[in-house]
């Protein structure tokens, strides 16, 4: 029996925590609403807000910290009451009863939820097995008028009072309270609580050895426990039944109940284990996930690095490609230029070769002619044939003249090409210049019976380099004489024009030339023009020189010619500005 009683004690104690939790749960709804109101009123109190938040979340350590901060900072008594209440509750939950009690004592009696304080104090007393004190606290709540509005509290309260009386061995009072609790719980349909109450009252009777009254309650509790899912009440109910059957010496039944008890206990343990395993698994899964996340993160970083490096390398490659393409282009361009230059040089070289061959031929033949002519002259002198002397000397001088002209042109051309010649443009009196040049032709004119007329007026001034102009005119006059027949006429005159240029026309009545020949002469080419089929020896160098020099003087050359009638060579030069 003593063993039984002891067992029951354990059951009762087990019940307490269960009840307390339930009680907290039911009050919270109202309390929560009130807390939210308070929080809304004191929005600026950050510490209180935080304490409140953590209190509702049931994170007790954080609640303790922030409520403490609130207490230090704020002098507000209303908030202080709440803060103390938070702290007391937090301490109580953490089973630090002495501190909890201190905090409860600090709460003013004006605190609107003071019955909660009393309840808390009562619970602490109950936990500390100071049942007499607990009864006083609980009964104060029961007697206070305010808690009537929260009548659902009553069942637990009354139940607790009942338990206290059991412990104080005031069984009549205990029976009264427990029965009241059963009635209230029945109406509230709180099955787990009802099972507890049934078992409590059964224990009550059992302790008083009123087995007949006790056993139906045990059985009721057992029957009811079958209808619920929780393992704890099932376990207790079956254990109680096992004890009861054991005491009645009905061992097979007791064994069955005991087995059932073991089963529920195992289930409970299993469940706990399952939960624990689940917890561990969860942790493991979280860890695994974290790992995965880390791996993914690293992968991402790696990928990013890869992508960046790819991007940079591709940009670099592109740049390299662009640069190399640019250089390639440049090179091809240079190559093209070089090729063009090479072709040009080749052409020039060919021209020079040709020029050289022609000149060497011309020079050799003319000097040779001079030589043979001189031999003849010597022979004539030896034979005293004076009549032939005149003719031979004339011949000699004309050959020398031609050769000199050729050499002169060659030299001038070389000077022009190497830009070694002094070049100075000035205002020139065209009439005198032409007179000067024509002066040299006087014997030739007489010889060929060609009449020369200089019709250029004295007022004409042109802008040119004197010597190059002389070379130009001399060459053109040379040609005019060369292609003029006997009794021909060479006229030099200015063609009147509107523009700022002076059109110097050198007209002859010579052989003339074809259109193609004219075009060929005027062509901007370094290549030498081919000679016609006539016997006149020449290189075309004279015309080239003329064109180059006219160009250098800022002028142009034009040709008007008809075969058999004559040729007009027109030198177009800029007039001197200040002499109209």
């Amino acid at each position: 029996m003593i063993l039984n009683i002891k067992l029951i004690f354990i059951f009762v104690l087990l019940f307490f925590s269960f009840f307390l939790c339930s009680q907290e749960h039911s009050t919270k709804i109202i309390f929560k609403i009130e807390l939210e109101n308070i929080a809304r009123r004191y929005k600026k109190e950050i510490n209180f807000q935080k304490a409140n938040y953590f209190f509702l979340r049931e994170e007790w350590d954080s609640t303790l910290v922030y409520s403490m901060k609130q207490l230090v900072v704020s002098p507000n008594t209303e908030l202080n009451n709440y803060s103390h209440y938070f702290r007391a509750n937090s301490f109580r939950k953490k089973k630090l009863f002495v501190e909890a009690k201190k905090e409860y004592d600090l709460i003013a009696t004006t605190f609107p939820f003071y019955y909660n304080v009393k309840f808390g104090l009562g619970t602490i007393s109950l936990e500390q097995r100071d049942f007499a004190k607990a009864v006083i606290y609980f009964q104060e709540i029961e007697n206070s008028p305010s808690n009537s509005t929260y009548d659902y509290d009553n069942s637990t309260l009354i139940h607790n009072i009942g338990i206290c009386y059991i412990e104080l061995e005031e069984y009549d009072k205990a029976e009264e309270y427990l029965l009241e609790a059963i009635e209230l719980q029945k109406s509230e349909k709180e099955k787990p609580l009802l099972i507890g109450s049934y078992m409590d009252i059964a224990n009550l009777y059992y302790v008083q050895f009123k087995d007949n009254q006790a056993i139906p309650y045990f059985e009721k509790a057992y029957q009811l426990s079958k209808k619920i899912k929780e393992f704890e009440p099932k376990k207790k109910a079956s254990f109680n039944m096992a004890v009861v059957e054991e005491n009645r010496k009905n061992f097979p039944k007791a064994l069955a109940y005991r087995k059932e008890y073991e089963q529920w206990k195992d289930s409970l343990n299993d469940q706990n284990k399952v939960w624990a395993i689940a917890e561990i698994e969860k942790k493991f899964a979280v860890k695994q996930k974290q790992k995965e996340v880390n791996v993914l993160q690293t992968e991402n970083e790696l990928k990013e690095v890869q992508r960046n490096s790819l991007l940079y390398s591709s940009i670099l490659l592109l740049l390299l490609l662009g640069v190399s393409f640019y250089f390639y282009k440049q090179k091809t361009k240079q190559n093209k230029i070089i090729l063009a230059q090479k072709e040009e040089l080749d052409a020039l070289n060919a021209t020079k070769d040709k020029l050289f061959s022609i000149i060497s031929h011309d020079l050799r033949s003319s000097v040779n002619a001079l030589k043979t002519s001189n031999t003849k002259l010597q022979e004539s002198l030896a034979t005293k044939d004076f009549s032939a002397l005149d003719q031979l000397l004339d011949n000699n001088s004309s050959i020398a003249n031609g050769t000199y002209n050729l050499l002169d042109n060659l030299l001038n051309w070389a000077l022009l090409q190497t830009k070694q010649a002094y070049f100075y443009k000035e205002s020139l009196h065209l009439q005198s210049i032409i007179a000067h040049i024509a002066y040299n032709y006087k014997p030739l004119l007489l010889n060929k019976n060609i009449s020369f007329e200089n019709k250029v007026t004295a007022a004409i001034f042109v802008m040119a380099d004197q010597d190059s102009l002389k070379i130009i005119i001399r060459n053109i006059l040379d040609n005019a004489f060369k292609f003029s027949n006997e009794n021909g006429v060479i006229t030099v005159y200015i063609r009147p024009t509107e523009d700022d240029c002076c059109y110097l026309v050198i007209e002859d009545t010579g052989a003339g030339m074809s259109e193609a020949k004219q075009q060929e002469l005027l062509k901007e080419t370094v290549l030498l023009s081919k000679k016609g089929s006539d016997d006149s020896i020449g290189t075309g160098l004279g015309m080239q020189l003329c064109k180059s020099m006219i160009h250098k003087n800022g002028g142009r050359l034009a040709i008007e010619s008809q075969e058999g009638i004559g040729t007009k060579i027109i030198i177009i030069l800029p007039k001197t500005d200040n002499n109209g």
Partner: protein
Amino acid sequence: MDNINVLIIEDTPAESDALIQVLKANNYTVVGVARTYTEALRLFYNSEIKIDIVVIDIFLDGKADGITFAETINIVPNKSKPFVFLSSSKDRQIFERAKLTQPFSFLLKPFNELEILYALEMAVEKFYGQTNVFLSEVQDTVIGEDYLFVKKNKSLKKVLIDDIVYIEVEDRYCNIVAENEKFVILMSLTKLVQLLDPEKFCQTHRNFIVNTNKIEEIIVNDNLLILKGNHKVTLSDKYKDFVKKFRILK
């Protein structure tokens, strides 16, 4: 009218001989031929010979001493004379140097008679800063410091300005009356007045310019000037102010 005195600086006798021949044929007087730079300087600064033009061959014995000579005579102010360079090549470097001896005129060898005469005329024109005179149809005289250079036919002549007594203008022509001769030049009055030294010459009438040094008597009442050689020139009212230039003894 006197011939123009020419100094020739030429190291090749054949060339100088040809030159002398041409110049003499055209009534120029060759006062000397210098073969070297020092000889040229000696002849040039000889005060007994009045040199009017110098013909300089650039290359004397292979050196560009001709240019050096021109540079030398150009350094002394008011002592320089018109000169013509002769050269057989148009070497740029040489010409760039020669060009600095302003006024610069040159003649390229070989040259004919016309060209050398033309070059001499050009040298005179350029030297006295009166270009396009001898070639134009309205003027044939360049007025130098001491001489008038007058173109007669193909050649130049000079007249000592101090010898002129007075100048009478008729249209485009000017009758120049010197102490010993009379001749006509082609020149406008305005240009003449502009170029003659105003210290020496004064206009006394619309048509008369008088050498003040030649005035012997001024008869204001008769509007008459009596000049040296008993030339009589009219003095018009408009130009009577010139009398104020003289210190009148009372």
